[in-house]
């Protein structure tokens, strides 16, 4: 059986500069992978390329998702197929109520998959349930998307969307940055609730602490555009002790 996500020897350039130099990563259904690594090592770049953000030039390698060539798909097509990226910096969309946004996006995805749209009561019920479990007040959903949200609220809103869209691959880019302890626990609980044998997660983080809440099956260390070491969850603890310096040479 093929992997859910298969990144093979990926090379990526941004503005003539190569950022990823042949990165490989295999993620199977049901697994949680953590990616760690120093600032600027290319973690967000990898997540953007998987999600299809414009501005990146793939000069080599391939990405297969459920056995299909992901790089051939438009980003909205990838979303409908189950790729979800929780952004490191979620944007604000003034004037577009969060509720409207959620519904428009959810129904766009369902439509793209040939599924029927949610009825209003079903949709509302679902959003309310998920929002309550994440401690998101209804009032927040009436506001513009992320407008005036605190850092923690923005991140919770990302988890809310993840729960709502039920993607098969969740990439969380520094979900823990800017969250206080309580907010982190709530968000992590939300993520853990979504763990299933049908779904995989790629958790990008700088801190072991998040991995105490979301316990990974695998940990990868990225440095200078490559995966330089992979291991079990104990690798994260090791990193906490020794830092990234030991990998710098290997990456060069």
């Amino acid at each position, binding site marked *: 059986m093929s992997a859910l996500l298969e990144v093979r020897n990926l090379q990526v350039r941004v503005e003539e500069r190569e950022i990823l130099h042949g990165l490989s990563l295999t993620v199977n259904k049901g697994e949680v992978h953590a990616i760690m690594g120093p600032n600027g090592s290319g973690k967000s770049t990898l997540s953007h390329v998987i999600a299809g953000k414009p501005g990146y030039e793939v000069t080599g390698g391939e990405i297969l998702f459920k056995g299909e060539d992901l790089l051939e798909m438009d980003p909205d097509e990838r979303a409908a197929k189950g790729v979800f990226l929780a952004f490191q910096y979620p944007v604000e969309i003034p004037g577009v109520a969060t509720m409207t946004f959620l519904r*428009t996006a959810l129904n766009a995805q369902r439509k793209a998959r040939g599924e029927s749209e949610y009825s209003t009561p079903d949709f509302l019920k679902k959003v309310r349930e998920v929002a309550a479990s994440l401690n998101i007040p209804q009032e927040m959903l009436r506001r513009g998307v992320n407008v005036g949200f605190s850092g923690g609220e923005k991140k919770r809103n990302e988890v809310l969307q993840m729960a709502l869209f039920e993607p098969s691959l969740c990439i969380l880019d520094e979900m823990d940055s800017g969250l206080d302890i309580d907010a982190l626990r709530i968000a992590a609980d939300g993520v853990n609730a979504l763990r299933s044998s049908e779904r995989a997660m790629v958790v990008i983080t700088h801190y072991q602490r998040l991995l105490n809440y979301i316990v990974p099956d695998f940990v990868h260390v990225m440095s200078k555009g490559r995966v330089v070491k992979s291991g079990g969850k104990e690798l994260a603890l090791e990193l906490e002790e020794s830092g990234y310096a030991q990998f710098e040479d290997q990456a060069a």
Partner: protein
Amino acid sequence: MPAELETVERVRRIDVDQYRYGFETIIESEKAPKGLSEDIVRFISAKKDEPEWMLEWRLEAYRRWLTMQEPTWARVDYPKIDYQDLYYYSAPKQKKALASLDEVDPEILKTYEKLGIPLREQEILAGVVRPEGETDGEAPRRVAVDAVFDSVSVATTFQAELKKAGVIFMPISHALREHPDLVRKYLGTVVPTSDNFFATLNSAVFSDGSFVYVPPGVRCPMELSTYFRINERNTGQFERTLIIADKGSYVSYLEGCTAPQRDENQLHAAVVELIALDDAEIKYSTVQNWYPGNSEGKGGVYNFVTKRGDCRGKNSKISWTQVETGSAITWKYPSCILRGDNSRGEFYSIAISNGYQQVDSGTKMIHLGKNTTSRIISKGIAAGKSQNTYRGLVSAHRKATGSRNFTACDSLLIGDKCGAHTVPYVEAKNSSALFEHEATTSKISEDVLFYCVQRGLSQEEAVGLVVNGFVRDVLQQLPMEFAVEAQKLISISLEGSVG
């Protein structure tokens, strides 16, 4: 279904460069010969069976017009208009005066149907309007429609109920016959015949338009609405609208326009005059989506409009709301003269340009009375190779003590081949006036678009959503049913704006 979803669907269905309203109604029309002369002015006046004073009024305007120059200060560029190469009168042929819609030429009704008017109007004409999902236990909203087909109003609905309330709502040509004193008292008192080149031309040759009079203390029982439509080849459309809200009255009026696709450019020079007496309020909303020209910048309507409201009485209020998505050239500055003490003027505008459209639009708030206030919220969106200019004037007269203005002009650029410009003029002749001005120009953010696309929206749906968010403050000023339509229109007009 929520408006956004509908928008999204609608956008999906429509091909780029395909104007939905591009068709032509084949009705025999009765036309005056091409060109403009005193004889043509006389012909128009005679056709309308007008009183002698009206003819004189027109002729005076015509003579004046001959001495005037077309203005060149706006940031618009178009080939010279040959005023002798246009038709100035064209009326659908009809045998007798019409009593009801049943008698209207089915071809015309079909045209309205294609226009999408029946989406709402079929219900309205049947007497019930209750937009789905908006049933908050309120009385159903209703709209009376006075349809101006080319130059002649073909049907007016809801007359009876309006009559009961004492509201006069009819084609101005009829008002000239039935209420000549009222028309004579107010016509040209806000926009004088000598006002500007296009307004003067309109005064000489206007063919029809709407007339509204709301008597003292009356709250007009429904929204009044007119649909204009340019159909005849090379017919200039010159409507004239006159709305008077007498003391303590209220009226909300909506004008919506569409025109069929054309290769030749079509001239449109309307004049709208609003008069609010003591404690009266007029809310005037426009949704304009005339043919903007094709993707090479060919064709499209030239829209040179003079709209002005006079807050003549104390505590009166005039509010302009416009959604401008069409026309090749837009030259339009709905303004308020704040004459009465404590009067208030508002201007809410969404101006969208795409392709090769050129928009030069804004407002003037002229503070004459004491403690007058005004508010300007302008949202300009430029896409494609279009140019979008906000031009505004806020002035306070020496006696306008305590006057206040707040202006916010936001421009959004989509792509890098378009331009947005803001040209605000401020003149305060007394030191107690307080004018605030805010302006922003931003490019539509790639990060925001990607965020939406990552959540499953197509690139175009994402642009539509972001733009609708950008203009939300203004959309909220529109009557509910029109806001929904305007929202669709905005997305449609941004078709093909992203690569």
